[in-house]
Structures are given as C-alpha cells and as structure tokens.
C-alpha cells in the first residue's frame, strides 16, 4: 500500500496525516509521537507496509487496549484514503471527526452532565440540622428516606465521610515509630566533630496505607443505596495509597481513573454516563470471575482490603460465586462484605448467593444507613 508513495515528502505527509487520524480515534498521537513516527519511517523505510505498521504501532500505542484498537485504525486509514486522496490533505479521515471519538475519554464524560445534582446541592445548602434530626437521618435506612431528607443527608454524609478519612490518615501518622538512623545525615553532621556520630539523625519509614479494592453492586435491588455508597467510596479511596474501584451488575466496569481524576460532582456526573447497567440484573459470581480473570494481580495478600457492597441477590450460579470469592479470599488480607439488607430486623442471609458467599467473608456488616457505613472505620 505504501509502495506507491515515492517522494519522501509525500510519505512524511502521509505519516503526519495518519497520526492525526489516530489521534482522532483516541490513540495518544501527540507532537512527540508524530516526530517519532517520522523518525521511525526514515529508519524503517516506507516500502514495507508490515514493518511500517509494527513500527507505528509500537510508537502510538501505550497499553493493551490501544494495541488492540490499532489494527482497525490502521486498516481504515489506508482503505479510506486512496493514493490520490492522500495528497489533497486527506479528506477521508477528516469526515471521521464527528464519528464516535472514544466515549471513554474523561473529557467527553465531563462535558455531558445532566445538571440534576445542582438542585440537590442547593437544597442541601439551606438545610439546618439539629442534633436530633441528624441522629434520625444517620440512623434511618437509606431506602426509606424522602427526597428532601436525602439532600440533607448527602450534606451530612459528605462531612462525616471526610472526617472519617482524616481520622484514618491521622491514626496512621501517630502509629509510626521513630524509625531508622539516617546514616547519610548523621555522617554529614559528624564530619566537623572528627567523625564521631554524636547526634543521630533519624529517618521515618513512609506510612504504608493499605490497598483498597471495592466492588459496588449497582443492580436494581441496590438502587436506593447506590448513590450514597458511591460517595462513601469516593471519600474512602482518597486515603489509600492505591484504591481500585469497580461497579458491577451483570458485568464489571472499572471506575478507578474516573474517581481519581475528578471532583466528586464531576465524577458522579461522569458515572451516570457509564454504560454499566445501572439498576439492571445481578451476576455477582460472573462479575467476580471477570475480576479474577483480568484484575487478579491487583490483589496482594499482605495489604489488600477487598470490599464488596451488595445485597447478595444473585441470579447467577452460587457455586461460581463461592469459587470465585474463595479465589479472591486467598489473595487478600481481609474480605469485607457490606450488605444493606443486614439492617433489616428479621434479615437472614439465606439468599442462595449470600449463603454461598458467607464462609469466605471475614467481616459481614450492614450498610443500610450512615452510621453503619461510618462504623466500617474500625475495620480499616
């Protein structure tokens, strides 16, 4: 395909156009990459299209995901731009500007907000809460609250969640001991005293917060709780050195980067755009299998806390759930299952999924109101 391009300036232009085309398709083809691509083309020669493809791929891709998308992008470009069209500044790629760029880029998620949450913010601002009202709200089951109560509770919860995560951070700092002798600084000070290390300098070990991996059930039966649980997770993840967050219903969606990069309101807005199957059915076992298959390496038995937030209503095979949960259990420090239904007085974990899961769970706790979520602090 590339064989028809004889002059090197023509070839260079094609490369630049391809880079632009790739950028429109969501690959990371910035200025530096384009320059590298030109250098690569010069080093490889343009006659052999296979090598050209491999070379461009190694430059423009930076993950397995983009690696998998490259082939199609490459083929489309050369198919659409026939040799003649290429010299006229590539009309074919231009058309694609309007086509689906990459729905997963954070910018497009942020720009398409619904604006619903603005009103709830306003409501919350005027809410004044006495101690008794606050107690009532923090202890009320989230699914039974009225709309205005929800807005108030959202305000309280944000504050409390933040308090909690600050407390967690402080607890860690107090716990660290004096640490090791810092020989480098000690010697520096000792030179002027003839080498006797009279004043020892210390170096503290950096605190090592645990890793947190959370799976939040967003199926229909969980929908009264989902919003709060998302906020809870958002507050929580800020104080772990590494926090990976996933949503699941019938499938698994990772939202770690969404959470990390944005303010809470933006993150919530972006989340609502995720094709994650909000309020759909549940397949906990299948989602866990997916997790184990792809993300297993994120677990580390020395320091990972694994938290599942789900009511345990599972339409999948309980055997699969038990098997996959056991596989997780062996790779983490603690497996915590938070179940909103546990707040109900006469609840027994007899749903087939839940009873299959229980033997592998270290901490089984309620998550139906604010107090129960805050009580989780003692397990962290």
């Amino acid at each position: 395909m590339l064989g028809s391009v004889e002059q090197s300036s023509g070839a260079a232009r094609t490369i630049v156009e391809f880079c632009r085309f790739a950028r429109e398709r969501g690959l990371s083809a910035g200025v530096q990459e384009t320059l590298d691509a030109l250098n690569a083309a010069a080093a490889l020669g343009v006659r052999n299209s296979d090598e050209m493809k491999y070379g461009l791929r190694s430059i423009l891709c930076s993950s397995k995901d983009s690696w998998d998308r490259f082939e199609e992008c490459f083929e489309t470009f050369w198919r659409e731009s026939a040799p003649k069209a290429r010299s006229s500044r590539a009309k074919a790629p231009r058309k694609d500007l309007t086509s689906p760029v990459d729905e997963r880029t954070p910018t497009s998620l942020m720009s398409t907000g619904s604006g619903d949450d603005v009103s709830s913010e306003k409501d919350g601002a005027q809410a004044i809460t006495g101690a008794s009202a606050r107690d009532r709200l923090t202890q009320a089951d989230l699914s039974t609250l009225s709309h205005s109560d929800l807005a108030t509770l959202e305000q309280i919860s944000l504050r409390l969640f933040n308090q909690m995560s600050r407390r967690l951070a402080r607890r860690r700092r107090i716990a660290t001991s004096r640490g090791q002798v810092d020989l480098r600084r000690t010697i520096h000070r000792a030179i002027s005293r003839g080498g006797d290390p009279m004043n020892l300098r210390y170096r503290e070990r950096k605190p090592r917060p645990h890793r947190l991996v959370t799976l939040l059930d967003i199926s229909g039966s969980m929908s009264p709780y989902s919003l709060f649980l998302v906020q809870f997770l958002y507050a929580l993840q800020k104080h772990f050195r590494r926090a990976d967050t996933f949503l699941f219903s019938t499938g698994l969606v990772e939202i770690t980067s969404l959470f990390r990069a944005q303010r809470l309101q933006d993150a919530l807005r972006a989340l609502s755009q995720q094709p994650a199957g909000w309020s759909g059915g549940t397949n906990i076992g299948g989602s866990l299998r997916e997790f184990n298959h792809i993300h297993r390496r994120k677990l580390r038995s020395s320091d990972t806390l694994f938290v599942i937030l789900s009511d345990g209503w599972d339409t999948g095979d309980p055997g699969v759930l038990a098997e996959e949960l056991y596989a997780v259990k062996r790779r983490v420090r603690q497996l915590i299952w938070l179940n909103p239904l546990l707040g109900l007085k006469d609840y027994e974990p007899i749903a087939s999924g839940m009873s299959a899961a229980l033997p592998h769970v270290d901490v089984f706790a309620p998550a139906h109101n604010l107090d129960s979520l805050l009580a989780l602090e003692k397990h962290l």
Partner: protein
Amino acid sequence: MGESQASPSDAGNQGVDAIVSGFERLGYITDRSLATAVYLVTKLHKPILVEGHAGLGKTEVAKVLASFLGTRLIRLQCYEGLDINSAVYEWNYQKQLLAIKIEEGSDKTVEEKERHIFSREFLLERPLLQSILVEDTSPVLLIDEIDRADEAFEAFLLELLSDYQITIPEMGTIHAKHLPYVVLTSNRSRDLGDALKRRCLYQWIDYPSLEKEMRIVRTRLPHIEEELARQVVGYVQAVRQLNLSKPPGVAETLDCAEALLTLGMPELDEEAIEQTLGCISKSVEDGAKIRTAGVERLLAG
C-alpha cells in the same frame, strides 16, 4: 538515519531481518512485530515497554538484545518499596566513618575531608547509576516489573529516562556518556502513568501461535522428537483455553517438554500428563480443571 539516505527501505528491512535472525541464533524466536520495535529502540534510542502475560519471555527480550549487541546487561528488579538507595546509589557509610577516623590526625581542612569522603571511592553504584556510568558502549538497561514499584519511583524514572542524567547532591550531576537501551517490563498489576507510557515504545507479547511455539520448543530443546513436541504444544495450547487462574506460558511448555525428556517418556499420554501436571498448573484448582477437562479433549485440541 542520515547514513541510510540512499535506500532507507532496504536498510530498515535489513535491520529488522538482522534482529530476527540474530535473536534466533541466540535461541529467541521472535516475530517481525517485536523485531521492528527492537530495531526502533536501537535507532530512535527510546525506551521500550514490554507487556504481556507471565512466562512469555518479556525479560528475555532484554537479555537477548544485550548479547545481540554484544554489550552489558544491567538489571534492576523492581519491588514494592524500591527506593533511590537501592536503585540509584548509596554512600558506603562504614567506609566513610573509617576514613574520617583515619584522617583525624591529618592536617586536611574540613572541606578537603568532606570532598574526600564524598568522592566516587565511597559511592556504591546501584543499577541505574551503573547504566549511566558505563564508559565504552551503550549498555542494555532492564527495568523488570516496573508495575511493582510505586508511583514515586516511576516519577523518578521518568526524569532519568528523559535526560539520562543523575544528580548526587554531594558530587554534582553525572551525564550518560552512552545512552543506555532501556527495556521496561510490566505484568499490568497496576496502570502505569501516562507520562511514562508516552515516553516509551510499546510492545504487547501475546501467547504464541502453534507454529511459533513449535519453533520455540524445537530451538530450545533440539533433541526432542517432532511428534512429542507437537503433542506437548497442542496440549498446552488447549489448556490455555480452559480459563485457568494462571494459564501456562511458553516457559511452562518448555518445562513440561523437558520433564518428559528427562523422564524418558516417548509420548504424552494420560500418565505423562498426570506426572508433569506440576509443570503446567501452579494451583490445586487449575490442576483439577485440567483433569476434569479430560485428556482426550486436550490432546485432540
């Protein structure tokens, strides 16, 4: 790139060909995709990030590249908590303390003493500094399992890979005489930072096709019978379809084939599979899955 102006295409082709055949001579079967990327590493002097499942020879790329180029391999194994002291340099404190004592009676000024004990003589060079200090030719620097190190180290690495220089406060800045060829490997236990990824060429290594895996086995184990090799490779390829928690890589295929050779088994039957199960599956559950899948199906596959 300037010297290949006459027919750049041929030079590029030959360069890639040379890597394919050179790597093969060294016992590493590669395809043109990886060879092209490696060729660009040597031409553009950019680091390469190699990702892929375990046991597919990611680390081997750097080792073979070093012997192919006839240069030194410097290896940094990353782990959680890896810090500058074990990755870049550390002062030899005991020796410094002794030197201070020895010079106690001398009439050197404090400044002279300080300059002496913070000279190269007292510096313990760790891999990253070594790679900068190599005098004669560009070494290959292997940074293995970068995903295990933490973000702080990744940020430091970014700085090193852009300027190829290291600053030691007591000594000043050291520039690389010869830029090292850098190979990073990752098991994808976490996502690497975008900045680092953008600085690198990228190569994904997938499970090999049946033909390629056959060639690898025949190259590594020249004494194996054609038929036995075909059975083992077919069997392992079928096992990879089983949704195991740790699918076997090429390393496992080679282990299994070597085990059969050592045990003197002429063919892969039910008994042989049972005896070499430990080479293929690394957990009880995976072993059970292989057994229930049935020998006939796996051998047919």
